[in-house]
């Protein structure tokens, strides 16, 4: 299926939180078993277990790393921190009060002291109070984490900060347990934005994010926590940020890191096929697909044989009952591919 897609043009899909329903089983098989040959072979595990392994390794390999957030102590509502408090103690893995701006602000301070602060925001939908700190979790994230190094002329930094947040649709999440807020963060210089699509990716990218000397917002596709299962190396390994992956197929590109994103891989693909389809769950207007589209038009204008197509979420609040209408579904994508090829 992935190879069949090639003749239809390049497809960029960011965050496969809906990969199974969108692309059908054969593509899913490719997605879930990417030919990434890093580390030693391991057991077949799901995505949240892979996250748990990465966190365990992060704590084990660096005594100055800490994990905290709402309900993290007992293992987290998605079980990603299971067993960690018991293994490493409550001074390193702990619950925080229910306050996202507090979590991110606290994490920035901890990271600024040279620690690795791994903060969990229970749902990406709740990251907005922290926007300032990261800019509060978005403002804390946007105005604080993102500018910590720059505003001090590199005297201070909070590069040890990683903010994890489950994001995207889950089938029944409604307005506030389904959103994909990545574009907000991509608009802010100073933070990196990473989204894994599979257990092996999740583990390697999360460890890379934790060890990255810049603050990272790490969105975990929660629909795949249990759904995505693949063989994951048991040991410690990292996958590079900002390198898109062509291994799935030449034409189906998983960007994995949105900021800074791997323009070259997408450009090379479009130069070959003359076509591009971009898909993400977040609303289409002002989404990250717009940025990709603009960049590719700038670089490949004369090579394009059809307008860049976008199959994304609708410009509505994330709807509960109408979720299937909202989502970039399999047939929406197939129709768009046909339109692009027949243009």
């Amino acid at each position, binding site marked *: 299926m992935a190879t069949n897609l090639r003749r239809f043009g390049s497809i960029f899909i960011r965050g496969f939180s809906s990969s199974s329903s969108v692309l059908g089983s054969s593509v899913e098989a490719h997605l879930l078993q990417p030919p990434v040959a890093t580390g030693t072979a391991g057991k077949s595990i799901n995505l949240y277990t892979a996250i748990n392994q990465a966190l365990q390794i992060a704590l084990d390999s660096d005594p100055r790393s800490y994990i905290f957030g709402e309900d993290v102590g007992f293992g987290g509502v998605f079980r990603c921190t299971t067993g960690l408090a018991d293994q490493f103690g409550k001074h390193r893995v702990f619950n925080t009060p229910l*306050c996202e701006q507090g979590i991110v602000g*606290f994490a920035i*301070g901890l990271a600024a002291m040279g620690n690795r602060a791994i903060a969990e925001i229970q749902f990406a939908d709740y990251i907005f109070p922290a926007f300032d700190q990261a800019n509060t979790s978005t403002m804390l994230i946007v105005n604080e984490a993102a*500018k910590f190094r720059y505003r001090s002329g590199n005297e201070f930094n909070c590069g040890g900060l990683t903010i994890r947040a489950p994001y995207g649709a889950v089938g029944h999440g409604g307005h506030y347990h389904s959103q994909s807020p990545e574009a907000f963060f991509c608009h802010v210089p100073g933070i990196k934005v990473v989204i894994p699509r599979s257990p092996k990716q999740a583990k390697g990218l999360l460890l890379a994010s934790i060890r990255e000397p810049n603050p990272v917002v790490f969105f975990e596709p929660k629909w795949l926590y249990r759904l995505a299962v693949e063989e994951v190396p048991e040991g410690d390994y990292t996958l590079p940020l900002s390198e898109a992956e062509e291994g799935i197929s030449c034409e189906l590109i998983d960007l994995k890191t949105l900021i800074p994103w791997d323009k070259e891989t997408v450009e090379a693909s479009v130069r070959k096929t003359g076509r591009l389809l971009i898909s993400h769950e977040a609303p289409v207007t002002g989404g990250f697909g717009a940025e990709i589209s603009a960049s590719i038009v700038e670089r490949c204008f004369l090579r394009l044989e059809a307008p860049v197509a976008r199959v994304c979420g609708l410009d509505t609040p994330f709807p509960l009952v109408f979720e299937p209408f909202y989502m970039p579904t399999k047939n929406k994508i197939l129709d768009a591919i046909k339109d692009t090829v027949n243009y």
Partner: protein
Amino acid sequence: MNISIWLTRTKIGGGNFVKKIICNNLGLCSYYHSPTSSTTLLNSHLSNSTIRSKDYGFHRKGTFRFLYSSSSSVMFDGGRRHNATKAGGQLLSENDTENIVFKESQGEEFPGGKIGFTSEMNFLPGSSEKRVQCYRVLDEDGYPLSSTTMEHVSKEVGLKVYSGMVRLQTMDKYFYEAQRQGRLSFYMTSFGEEAINLASAAALTSDDLILAQYREPGILLWRGFTLQEFANQCFGNNAGHGKGRQMPVHYGSKNLNFMTISSPLATQLPQAVGVAYSLKIEKKDACVVAYFGDGTTSEGDFHAAMNFAAVMDAPIVFICRNNGWAISTPVTDQFRSDGIVVKGPSYGIQSIRVDGNDALAIYGAVHKAREMAINEQRPILIEAMTYRVGHHSTSDDSTKYRPIDEIEHWKTMHSPITRMRKWIERKGWWSEKHELDLQSDLINQVKNAIGEAEKAVKPQLRYLFTDVYEDLPTNLIEQERLLRETVQRHPQDFPIDVPL
């Protein structure tokens, strides 16, 4: 060593209780409600040793626990944990419970601890009848209050605090003038708040980490940040902290343990708790001191930070400069509580209100708070009462919203600098000649610093792109290349004092 005394209370009719506690020789003291009550008392240096239970919503059958330290004349207390959530926290051992005179006949083990029941429908008051008093050492004429407890201040420290206050005032005066003349883009003065700046800094060690707002440059001054360094940052030149990226007065210094100032209010507060947690884990003999104003306490981040600090048992001292005004918003539009100090106990944080224009009171309270924060690993809140004598910033004209008489009154009648000077003169440490020497020397230094900073080159263009990340990512490399091409094509469009 803490000694606890359990006292019963006496019913005096009307359902109200009066508890007499003898504490004449104890200076600051505090009252700790029984584990069966749902109320924690505010900790303050109460000169009045009688507490009316009605004011604080005590329950009928509670007991008070009265604590004092045999080794210190000053004792804060009141809530390592709220009584109701942890039955007295560290202060109450299981054996102690045998000493409780009254036990609730009824009660329930709610999550977080046992809570008793009462047949009286008592709403806790929104505020006490009497406002929390200010701890003060010197009166307006620089005389120590007769019964005050004060931290010893050496001649060296006393003179350094005073000359630092004058230094800050002089710097503010000439930097402000430079902005009025169009030489600086912006400036903010600390007029009227010099004592909080210098005396709090003096009570700390250089290992203590500072996360400040923007009206505390005196801390940097105390720690050795030079007038030239202040001027360089304000002029955004190549030598300045932050490489010309932030507005003036957004200072910082890694060497001086002073984290770079950020414009958004209160964002530094939860960060400060994270920093404090790091110190705690590393068992450092240091604490974090976080500064902010009265307006900032309305931000969510303030409340987040207070709660986090209490829950994390973080060694941090919160110092609120309550100067009465958040730009044009008076405290009466800012909150309905008795200022900031009363907010501390509701988070389980020991708190004190201090006369912010009394350098010795600030010095003593911060010194004690630091000791408690580190030794007991807990947060402390200090509310320093003061007045913002200057405009909010150079973008503000405060005579538009407050009477000039009010400003003049505080400027002339309550100057923290004048009060400190009277005290050091009375001590025989200072004279008119000292004053003249200090002033003339200072004015030259400030003027020189401004002149040098103004002449210095601006940061190079490359600093526009560096430090966004540790290394330049490809998008920024590309954008820098494109920008440089543009500058070459249209050099007339760009400032000439930025080196390419």
